[in-house]
């Protein structure tokens, strides 16, 4: 019995340790619907000196690979745009992929691999829970890393680095938008948090309390439920939330986590007693599978989104190019995706920012293979399109863009396989919702950080 138990425990430990990653480092987690070409994997040597290489850290294995293709199309559109315009310095740009296997311990090694393979910069298309590790690596190695994950105070306060640039949604801005819309305009007085335990999701909860209480001092969090990103069965908390009937639920965690949340929520009548707020109201990477089976709770999910893919009248040439190229992408078509996803837009912006930084180096006659030079160049880039004015704030290296608040609706979704679009849209500019230095300084003190500013 002891031997059986010992083997069981050893096996469970091994499975537990490897389950998050699921596959060997460079195996690619290939699938017919999300192909990762062998020539793109990190195991291959850098191809030749006639291309400029950008590393991408992304999930190719583990349950979190489920939404990877939505990200991949975004960076492929970014690369396509650069190369169609003639490349940079007469060279085409290519991407090398690296899989940290959803494991913080592997993040540094994969980033080092990218650097050693000759990549000029890295796009970090991995969750915010792994971002602080990458930020520490970037600071130590003085190498530019552009993050598409949600930006937490872990990145802007605790692990701030001049080498890290954030193109994903800022969790503080998310909280400010929700506070204004839900607490200010809709009069919500309490909420329940239900989400995964990434740094940005924890921020979302804490900062919503902070910002909500600025509007209504009585605004409170009734309960906080943290679910594992691997967990698909949390009916117990859904049923508890439904019986509590809070004014609102702050839900964090997309992909299979939200799908399970919505399915179980429908069964327990959660959407009959409250509304759910998140940051992927119209995001197809999360919502499509629910819409396909008629299980999407239209009208009861509210919150942030970043691309009005259903309304061409709101698009300029840049965003129209992104949307059209996204839908024409081979991977998008083979997977049958119905609309561009927010995560894809963030990846596109990340590649665009690196590309503009490289071009700035070329224009200035400086050496873009020097990480310090490219880092400084990325700091100075800017562009404007129909989703706002974009530049990196000196305060926290956060990319500026517009934040859209809306309510999910079925009306108009028929062209997108039922995947929801948004109505009652309110646009917030970055100036309105990103935190000020004073706010960040005050919050840093509550975190015990004294040397950030």
């Amino acid at each position, binding site marked *: *019995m002891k031997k059986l138990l010992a083997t069981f425990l*050893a096996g469970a430990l091994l499975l537990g340790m490897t389950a998050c990653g699921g596959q060997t480092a460079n195996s690619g987690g290939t699938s017919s*619907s999300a192909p990762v070409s062998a020539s793109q994997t990190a195991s291959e040597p850098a191809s030749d000196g006639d291309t400029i290489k950008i590393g991408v850290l992304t999930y190719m294995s*583990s349950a979190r690979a*489920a939404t990877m293709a939505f990200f991949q199309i975004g960076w492929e559109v970014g690369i396509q745009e650069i190369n169609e315009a003639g490349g940079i310095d007469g060279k085409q740009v290519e991407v090398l992929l690296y899989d940290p296997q959803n494991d913080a311990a592997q993040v540094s090694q994969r980033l080092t691999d990218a650097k050693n393979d000759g990549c000029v910069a890295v796009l970090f298309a991995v969750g915010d829970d792994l971002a602080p590790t990458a930020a520490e690596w970037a600071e130590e190695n003085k190498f530019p890393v552009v993050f598409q994950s949600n930006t937490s105070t872990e990145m802007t306060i605790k692990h701030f680095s001049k080498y890290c640039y954030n193109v994903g949604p800022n969790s503080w801005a998310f909280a400010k938008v929700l506070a204004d819309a839900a607490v200010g305009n809709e009069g919500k007085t309490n909420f329940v948090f239900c989400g995964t335990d990434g740094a940005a999701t924890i921020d979302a909860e804490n900062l919503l309390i902070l910002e909500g209480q600025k509007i209504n001092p009585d605004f409170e969090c009734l309960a906080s439920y943290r679910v594992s990103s691997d967990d698909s069965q*949390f009916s117990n908390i859904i049923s508890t939330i439904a019986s509590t009937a809070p004014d609102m639920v702050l839900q964090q965690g997309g992909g299979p986590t939200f*799908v*399970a949340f919505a399915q179980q929520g429908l*069964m327990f009548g959660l959407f009959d007693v409250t509304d759910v707020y998140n940051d992927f109201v119209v995001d197809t990477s999360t919502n499509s599978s629910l819409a396909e089976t008629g299980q999407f709770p239209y009208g009861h999910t509210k919150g942030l989104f970043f691309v009005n893919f259903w309304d061409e009248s709101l698009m300029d040439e840049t965003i129209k190019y992104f949307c059209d190229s996204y839908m024409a992408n081979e991977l998008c078509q083979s997977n049958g995706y119905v609309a561009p996803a927010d995560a894809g837009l963030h990846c596109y912006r990340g590649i665009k920012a690196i590309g503009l930084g490289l071009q700035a180096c070329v224009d200035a006659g400086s050496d873009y293979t020097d990480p310090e030079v490219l880092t400084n160049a990325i700091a100075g880039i800017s562009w404007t399109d129909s989703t706002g004015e974009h530049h990196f704030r000196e305060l926290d290296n956060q990319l500026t863009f517009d934040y859209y608040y809306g309510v999910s609706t079925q009306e108009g979704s028929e062209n997108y396989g039922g995947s929801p679009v948004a109505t009652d849209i309110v646009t917030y500019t970055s100036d309105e919702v990103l935190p000020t230095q004073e706010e960040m300084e005050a919050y840093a003190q509550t975190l015990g950080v004294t040397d950030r500013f």
Partner: protein
Amino acid sequence: MTVSQFALALVVGLASGMISYLTASGMSLIISGMGTINFGQGAFYIFGALLCYYTVKAELPFAVALLVGFAVPALLGIVVEFLLRPVFGLDMTYSMLITMGVSYMLCDGMSLMWGNTVRATPVPPMLNGAVRIASMNIAFPAYYLFIIIFSAAIAVAFKLMFTRTKLGIYFRAIISDRHMVECLGINVQLLFSVMFMIGLGLGGIAGALNAPISGLTPQQGLTIFNQVFPVLLVGGLDNMDGALPAALVLGVASALAAIFIPTYYNLVPNVVMVIVMFFRPNGLFSKKGA
């Protein structure tokens, strides 16, 4: 906590516990009979769930989906048992590595075949409602009641098979004294194959039952094991009778914890497991005691 909250938590806990029981009992059968631990059970659970999704998508009845979710993993059980034959009787590390390898192969195979996209299985229309008790102002989701009743029926059938059929007698004999059964001229190898079929089939049908209430991706097959882990250890690794009470106790405890300690509710099964391991390493429901 109100009576209706408690009643709802009880139903949720029982439903969740029954799904864990089906998954764990399949593993427990193989452990008891062959002394081998099937670390690939999670992959067969997701395989069953995805088979259920595609069967429903093909507009076949949900009952057929459940059947497919059981039968196809069960058939694969023959292959897995065949792969384990060369290492049978050797150090258990070999069978551990083989079943883990099968798990990875199956999960990657599903990714190759179906992609990694998240899938949502619709609830069968006749179960897509609630059973209301007006006097208590409470509504139980019909599908959760179905999970409890259906799983309980399987548990009863499983128990009857074990105690009332010739196959069950053989199984019990193998568990008690495998060599004696071999000496009697009974084809033990065939019985091992049947054990694996039932074990993996139970994992598959657990996944199929859970499919309409969870988002599915192939790579989840590598993490499901973590959820069954406490049930197996609290029930007793080689104690088949312990899996059911352990699954129900942990399911209900977890559901009640969601009400009383929401932030830490998901620690409860593991905390219970550690306490049980400390005082009764053979499991809470094992007659062997400490």
